């Protein structure tokens, strides 16, 4: 294949920040796009709330909509007690949504298409759930692993399953986001590659026939736009569900 579809995920060093223990700490294109995402969110939220009016303008209603969206999501899944985690869930949602959406722009880098980024976010949620659950409920937190209404003689089977599924949560949480973004971007690149392959191998007829994969690429981009938003939503709602476990343990 002429254009390697994996190449778009390459991390390149922009400049070196320093060395820690012999390891180079570099400012990469990934870091640059993270800063870009944070800058976009800051401009949206600070700009939207700078001149508050009773009848919101365009920027203000964007800011209010995103607030309302996340707030209703937390209230419906984790109850009103979950609202103390609003800053966490809102930051996660906005960061993932904006970095996914920025990644769709051609030639842009997708931060969330790297497993290390999504694992970091998922482990953050995992440890917050663990620490807050133990802090708030003490040992009653472990009722999470003992579903109520289950006969005692199946407990030896159910409890290990619950423990394993709890420990696997950060894996599925992170790999879902990472794999969705990776697969989507590779699919886009592969279909875009078909246009060039047809044109190069078949000449004029190929370039005309290349309209079909090109149309498919456009359709896939539209789908990716949906997926980018949806995966941010799913990541945030799963965070809410896991936090609900910490706030109200026991099934």
């Amino acid at each position: 294949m002429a254009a390697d579809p994996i190449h778009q995920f390459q991390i390149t060093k922009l400049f070196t920040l320093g060395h820690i223990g012999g390891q180079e700490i570099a400012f990469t294109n990934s870091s640059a796009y993270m800063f870009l995402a944070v800058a976009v969110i800051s401009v949206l939220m600070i700009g939207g709330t700078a001149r508050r009016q009773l009848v919101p303008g365009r920027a203000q209603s964007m800011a209010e909509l995103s607030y309302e969206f996340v707030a209703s999501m937390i209230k419906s899944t984790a109850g009103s007690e979950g609202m103390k985690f609003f800053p966490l869930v809102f930051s996660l949602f906005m960061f993932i949504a904006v970095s996914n959406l920025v990644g769709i722009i051609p030639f842009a880098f997708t931060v969330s298409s790297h497993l290390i980024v999504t694992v970091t976010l998922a482990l953050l949620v995992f440890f917050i759930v663990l620490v807050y659950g133990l802090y708030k409920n003490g040992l009653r937190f472990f009722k999470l692993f003992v579903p109520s209404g289950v006969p005692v003689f199946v407990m030896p089977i159910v409890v290990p399953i619950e423990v394993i599924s709890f420990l696997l949560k950060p894996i599925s949480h992170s790999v879902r986001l990472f794999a969705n973004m990776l697969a989507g971007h590779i699919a886009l690149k592969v279909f875009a590659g078909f246009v060039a392959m047809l044109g190069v191998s078949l000449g004029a007829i190929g370039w005309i026939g290349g309209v079909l994969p090109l149309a498919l690429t456009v359709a896939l981009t539209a789908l990716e736009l949906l997926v980018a938003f949806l995966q941010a939503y799913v990541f945030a709602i799963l965070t809410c569900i896991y936090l609900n476990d910490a706030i109200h343990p026991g099934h």
Partner: protein
Amino acid sequence: MDPVAAKYIGAGIACIGMGGAGAGVGIIFGNYLAAAVRNPSAAQGQFGNLIFGFAVTEALGIFSLLIALLLLFAL
């Protein structure tokens, strides 16, 4: 067997898993639609559950696609 051929066969086999995810997503949306036609007023409240179920199911298909892509390009 030629290792490269085995790699491509493996990628093809890995994609079979996506069929299950396809069936699962179809069941989710089909049942949601059936329920929404019966009781349109309750449909709005279950949209979050729909998206959640869709994402959880779709992720499994994506996992198998990921294995295929890793076999094709990364290994």
